[in-house]
């Protein structure tokens, strides 16, 4: 939080058209899901009139699926941004040479390991180059996200 952030925060709070929300995001997604569920329920109702026991089972299954989806969403909230950014960076054009060398080395060493005698080299150096590239690329993005 720099000096300018403080000023912009004050200005935003003072402007009449601003809306003060303590925890604004993550509301819309749940509303959408509830809307979907109501739609699904309305859709399932005519079916329920035709075949009642089967429709009830389907409804239960759907509810379970929804619960699972919600759990997954909670898990997704706790995904480490470092891994996400570094995965992006690893597959970016910037780190393509390092990744190419590393993949090639892994292929060569695993092939040698499966044969007799085993591999007489390792991919640590290639791994270092890849990790260095990925972390250097992800560092500014990561620290802009972290608190």
């Amino acid at each position, binding site marked *: 939080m720099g000096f300018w952030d403080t000023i912009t925060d004050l200005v935003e709070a003072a402007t009449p058209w601003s809306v003060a929300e303590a925890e604004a995001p993550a509301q819309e997604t749940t509303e959408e899901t509830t809307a979907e569920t109501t739609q699904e329920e309305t859709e399932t109702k005519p079916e329920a009139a035709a075949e009642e026991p089967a429709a009830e089972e389907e409804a239960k299954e759907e509810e379970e699926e929804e619960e699972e989806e919600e759990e997954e969403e909670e898990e997704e909230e706790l995904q480490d941004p*470092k891994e996400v950014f570094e995965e992006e960076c690893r597959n970016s054009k910037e780190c393509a040479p390092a990744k190419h060398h590393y993949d090639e080395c892994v292929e060569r*060493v695993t092939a040698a390991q499966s044969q007799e005698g085993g591999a007489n080299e390792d991919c640590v150096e290639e791994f270092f180059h890849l990790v260095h590239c990925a972390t250097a690329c992800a560092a500014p993005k990561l620290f802009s996200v972290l608190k």
Partner: protein
Amino acid sequence: MLARSCVRPMRAFASARNGAVQITKRAASSSSGSSAESPLRLNIAAAAATAVAAGSVGWYYHLYGNSHAMTPAEEGLHPTKYPWVHEQWLKTFDHQALRRGFQVYREVCSSCHSLSRVPYRSLVGSILTVDEAKALAEENEYDAEPNDQGEIEKRPGKLADYLPSPYPNDEAARFANNGALPPDLSLMVKARHGGCDYIFSLLTGYPDEPPAGAQVGAGLYFNPYFPGTGIAMARVLYNGLVEYEDETPATTSQMAKDVTEFLHWAAEPEMDDRKRMGMKVLVITSVLFAMSVWVKRYKWAWLKSRKIVYDPPKEGQTKIRD
């Protein structure tokens, strides 16, 4: 006396020079006679030296094999530079982050690592309130003064006490950790190359599996940032391990960032004051320097602005001295 003592070495020098001249003369005169022998001797010496050199290299490889010295793995991966806010010149520690970092230390790190140079009193005002610090201190027992019978009893901790260590001594720490000693973290940010970057990278840098072909010793874990890549500490930070009181999502990197900043505070609690004092020093000395430059120019103005003119006598007006 002085002159004589100075002259004596001069004389010795001169005689030495004469001797050198004579030696060169002798060498020049004798070279014509023994010129047939010296190439053979030189060849033998060269061959012997080469044989010794090659033999010692061969012996080394025979003893140690194709040894991997000075490999990148031995050095360890150098940590990436991260844009730490609190390391900037005009920025201080984020005390909310310090509070979170202390929570991570207390709930995760403190089961193995001590923080023996940090007393509870230093936490007051920067991380905890007085009441919180007192309550925390009272959770632990410390040795009291000897009583009437000379026995040392236990008393609840005070603000003046230091944070308790998980093990009574290094031997107990080694025994409990498979022979590896968890270092004290009080000065760790200052004690390692890379400082905050190294600790953050080490905590978050454990790969899912070591790269192909890498040798990981028994009881060790692969971490690219640790010199030698085999570290006895397993990965400890996982998403959601700690529940922050300010509801920050406790991802691995968030916890590592907070605990690293906390450890930087532990190693350098005077940083905020130091930066402020540095700014004061820079501002005041620059003003004083500017003033001193102005005063110097003011005082020297008459000297610098004077003009010396040589007015040569004109030809017709030569004066004749009486």
